[in-house]
């Protein structure tokens, strides 16, 4: 290379990841840089690909359920819930109310746990050391409830096709209520640390802006979509379980920047507490399983079912050929689709903001790669 072309080359390509603490796993981003400014990027994914969809075709409907926990491993409850609900829709099973409310309580607690993990690590990425200790302290309480319920903390496999395997243990309601009372003031604590913190504002306001039109075109869902001001939540739009019977708000942002997505998620934690409290009030003794046979053998057909996972719309497209094994299971992972917006969001920003945007997308690589 002659000296002249070398001097002209003011565009630099660097790799961020796959071993990088702020990529939350094994994400590799090829960045094209002009100095500190990002000109463009390409996300390289697949390092954690395990062929979950292929595994599904080689397992029975029941056997596949635990694998779903290992996709979004910080929100295993909602992952499993999406799958069992899709199979239930295929079977046409109605769930008893006790099972529905139990599922909703655990799913909302899982949403809080997932958001807490996000909040702690996101703040840590941006240089705020303190929140991560507080959020993990509260997350621990949720994991204890999970452990008491089903014996597992992370890969819970909490639900079964047709209902629940375990009934609630004695004192579950009391424990959940206690957690709700304990948790709400803690959210104020996080907000006291961050919401009006000048460094936090500088790092998040106006960073990674996603307009509503872009958000819909790029297919993002969940808090990322709502942060852009689109008031859409699967729990409200197409309710599953008993979400149409509880009251809650769908918080939205205005500017579609990292700060708004932060506010949306913090508000969502409060709404989750609200839903959990209503469910605990309504839960009544009764059966925990709907009418399903010992062998799950759905009729020939296909269904798409989606739920509002902590990260966005989690969909399962299940095709049945009438046998005991699914013919095809497609997972529509929210993280995979949301990650696609990364390039649009970081163009023109500084390298340090890439970390902020990856954090605000709240991706889990286990789900991106499956």
């Amino acid at each position, binding site marked *: 290379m002659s000296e002249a072309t070398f001097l002209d080359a003011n565009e630099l390509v660097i790799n961020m990841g796959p071993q990088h603490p702020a990529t939350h796993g094994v994400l590799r981003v090829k960045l094209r840089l002009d100095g500190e400014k990002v000109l463009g990027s390409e996300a390289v*994914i*697949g390092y954690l*690909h395990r*062929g979950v*969809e*292929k595994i599904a*075709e*080689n397992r029975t409907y029941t056997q596949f359920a635990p694998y779903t926990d290992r996709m979004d491993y910080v929100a295993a409850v909602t992952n499993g819930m999406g799958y069992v609900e899709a199979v239930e*829709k*295929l079977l*046409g099973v109605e769930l008893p109310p006790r099972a529905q409310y139990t599922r909703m309580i655990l799913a909302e607690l899982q949403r809080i746990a997932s958001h807490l993990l996000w909040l702690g690590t996101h703040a840590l990425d941006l240089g705020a050391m303190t929140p991560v200790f507080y959020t993990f302290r509260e997350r621990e309480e949720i994991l204890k409830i999970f452990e008491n319920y089903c014996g597992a903390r992370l890969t819970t496999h909490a639900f079964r096709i047709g209902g629940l395997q375990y009934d609630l243990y004695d004192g579950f309601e009391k424990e959940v209520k206690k957690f709700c009372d304990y948790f709400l003031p803690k959210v104020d604590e996080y907000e006291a640390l961050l919401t009006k913190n000048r460094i936090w504002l500088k790092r998040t306001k106006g960073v990674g802006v996603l307009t*509503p039109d872009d958000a*819909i*075109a*790029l*297919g*993002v869902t969940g808090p990322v979509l709502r942060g852009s*001001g*689109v*008031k*859409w939540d699967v729990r*409200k*739009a*197409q*309710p*599953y379980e008993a979400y*149409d019977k509880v009251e809650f708000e769908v918080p939205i942002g205005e500017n579609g920047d990292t700060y708004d997505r932060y506010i949306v998620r913090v508000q969502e934690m409060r709404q989750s507490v609200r839903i959990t409290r209503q469910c605990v009030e309504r839960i009544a003794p009764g059966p925990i399983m709907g009418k399903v046979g010992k062998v799950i053998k759905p*009729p*020939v*057909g*296909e*269904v*798409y079912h*989606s739920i509002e996972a902590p990260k966005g*719309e989690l*969909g399962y*497209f299940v*095709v049945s050929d009438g046998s005991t094994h699914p*013919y*095809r299971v*497609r997972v*529509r992972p929210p993280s*995979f*689709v949301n990650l*696609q917006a990364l390039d649009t969001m970081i163009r023109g920003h500084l390298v340090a903001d890439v970390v902020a945007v990856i954090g605000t997308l709240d991706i889990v690589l286990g789900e991106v*790669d*499956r």
Partner: protein
Amino acid sequence: MVDEPKAPPAGGSSEPPARPAPPAGTPTGTPQTAAAPPGPAVPAAKAAPPAAKPAVKPEPWASPLLDELQKLFPSAISDALIFRNQPSVIVTKESLLQVCEFLKSDEGGEYTLLTDHTAVDYPKREKRFELVYHLYSFKHNDRFRVKVMAGEGEKIPSVVGLWPTANWMEREVYDMFGALYEGHPDLKRILLPDGWTGHPLRKDYDILKQDDAWVEANLGIKSGQ
């Protein structure tokens, strides 16, 4: 700001306006009962359970949207079925882009969000891949499934121009099934390494054989699975 979706109907997902009545005289049980010789009441009792619980299967779908589609694209739409309240149609690949453009437009229901795009492999069919598009309309709070059949090596028009989110989804389908797209900006593998051979989600991609081959090539022994 985008409009808040309308409150969903009681049934959860959108209700089709008019579902055609099931064909009269479902064949379940009735012929046997008629042909059964008069005698003990066992055959009648046996015939009762299936009559009470008819087999669930996809049924023909009728809706104003389908009428509109059939009017605009008379030869392109086929197999309009509904199963568990989820309608789907099959579109020819030639008119896929026009149909999608219409569905995205104001008259076509404003299906502005491509929720998901994937494929299903049926190796015994003449056109083995069934490419599935899941559309969502914020305005009508409605989901709709569009399918296209594609043979091996057949190029399907890419919908990235209409829904940029299709970019990675089509790459994934190419990666996993080997279905090809025309007009995709950067069609390459996404989850698997670039040098990978084969497309894992095809039905003839046997995981046991893959495992055996790997063990033989790398360890020099029979895997014995």
